[in-house]
């Protein structure tokens, strides 16, 4: 009896989790006729992969597809933002980890990270506009540092806390300064935490929508979240194309999610990633 309840619940849970995603994937490969047939056929008569091709290939006049540009922009913002954030956060986390007053600073980081973006958007817009960084993936990456740095500082501090202090002393004996100990000893030993922080940061940058919506308005700068939402403004004309774009945008973060699997909870406790 108990076993039957458990198994039924497990199947129900799997269905709840998977059904929407599976439906998105089915839509993306269904022919237009199959999508717009009432009553609905649950499985498409044939697989139509043409939308993926259309999304990623150049238009008639030979211009790069806007969606491909958006993927590129998201990559620039994600990788650039993550690299810069890790540098700043790495130094701060190392200092906090080895000082006595570290805890207060960490809590300040958590608090900073959780503030609403709506309250910061207008002044940031004015700053970007004044420095010519509106509509620029580099500008967006710099803005993202505002939440990437506090979040990664938290994770990296925990990582550096795991490096035994006796090794600091051993490094000193060998003539290393505090910075030397960080570079030669702490970073190599904390590389798992650093990788986790990097993956979280990539995920957060890829997912971000609000700032990207406000600060980018042309194909040269729009990120993938904004580009997808563009497809859906007003009435949706081609369900399949929207679905295909959604699948492409979801693949990288889901892959990262699987990689993060084991370290998910420690990261989530720092502030829940999305917002």
């Amino acid at each position, binding site marked *: 009896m108990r*076993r039957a309840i*458990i198994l039924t*619940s*497990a199947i129900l*849970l*799997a269905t709840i*989790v*998977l059904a*929407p995603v599976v*439906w*998105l994937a089915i*839509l993306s490969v269904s022919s237009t006729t199959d999508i717009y047939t009432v009553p609905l056929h649950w499985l498409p008569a044939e697989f139509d992969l043409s939308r993926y091709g259309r999304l990623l290939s150049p238009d008639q006049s030979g211009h790069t597809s806007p969606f491909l540009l958006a993927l590129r922009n998201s990559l620039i913002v994600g990788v650039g933002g993550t690299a810069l954030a890790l540098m*700043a956060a790495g*130094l701060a986390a*190392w*200092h906090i980890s080895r000082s006595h007053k570290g*805890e207060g600073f960490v*809590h300040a980081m*958590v*608090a*900073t990270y*959780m*503030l*609403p*973006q*709506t*309250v*910061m*958007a*207008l*002044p*940031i817009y004015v700053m970007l*506009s004044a420095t010519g960084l509106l509509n620029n993936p580099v500008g967006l990456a*710099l803005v993202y*540092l*505002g939440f990437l740095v*506090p979040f990664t*500082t938290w994770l990296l501090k925990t990582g550096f806390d795991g490096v035994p202090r006796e090794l600091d002393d051993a490094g000193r004996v060998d003539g290393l300064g505090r*910075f030397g100990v960080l570079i030669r000893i702490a970073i190599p030993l904390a590389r798992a935490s650093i990788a986790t922080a990097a993956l979280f940061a990539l995920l957060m940058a890829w*997912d971000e*929508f609000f700032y990207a919506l406000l600060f980018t308005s042309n194909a040269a700068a729009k990120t993938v*979240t904004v580009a*997808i*939402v563009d497809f*859906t403004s007003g009435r*949706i004309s081609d*369900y399949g194309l929207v679905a295909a774009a*959604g699948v492409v945008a*979801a693949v990288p*973060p*889901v892959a990262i*999610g*699987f990689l993060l699997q084991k370290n*998910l*909870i420690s990261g*989530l*406790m720092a502030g*829940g*990633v999305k*917002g």
Partner: protein
Amino acid sequence: MTAGVLLLRRDAGRAAFYLGPTILILAVAVGGPLVFTLGISFTSASFLGTLKDLSFVGLGNYVEIAGSPQFQRAFFVTLKFVAFTVAVEMLLGLGAGLLLAEQFPGRTLLRVLLVIPWAIPTVVSAITWRLIYAPDFGVLNALLQQLGLIDEYRSWLGDPLLALYAIGIADIWKNFPIVALIVLAALQTVPQELYDAAYVDGAGVFHRFKAVTFPHILGPLMVALVLRTIDTVKVFDIIWVMTRGGPFSSTKSMSMLVYERTFSNLEAGSGSAISFIITLICIAFIVVYVRLLRRQGS
């Protein structure tokens, strides 16, 4: 004495080197903007690419907001959304977490699958659910009709009474896995001896949950509750994609109202004031959150 001062100065220099970049980034990208917005909220500023009409109006915007039916509506929309989604996320997350702590075939796979809704970008999940709810060819209509539960297709997101809850369901799907994974992690710290002892004492399933399991996961459960509340109070992305605040403002949350006033209605002053009210609400919860984290840490 001199040595002490030198040492202090060396310490300050060292702190500046390590903390400087982070403090600079946060001052420019977070602290400065926060103060600036607070300042704007005391003016009648309008915004169209640049800020104009920065005349000081004191608390005028806040007074206007307090009496504004628009704001009251947005406040209650947000409140309803938070109450509905967070409550269901907690219950579903608790149930799923308890389930995943049991032994059954496919358990590891199911745990991995739970990562999917969490990892999918918010706007992609919003689009997915918009397609599911679509009034003309949506799969929800097809399913309900083929099961004989509805006679004709309905516009789920076009109905002012349903739209907010329809969005809520999409939000729950995306976020209950986080709660489930937090609960699961907490369950794995409960010592097996406690269960064995309770079992020997003849405690039933319900009693074991109340006496052993629940006290152990209460802390993490509270963390998840506050975390989800803070996140949901700020809700913007999912509403923007699914309804843009409609129909008839029935899904216009406070953040949606800030966007509308600041970036479409040339009312940067009052938009900033509303965003500051959201911030104060968030800060109240953040204080609770940091307290909880501190207690967890010790």
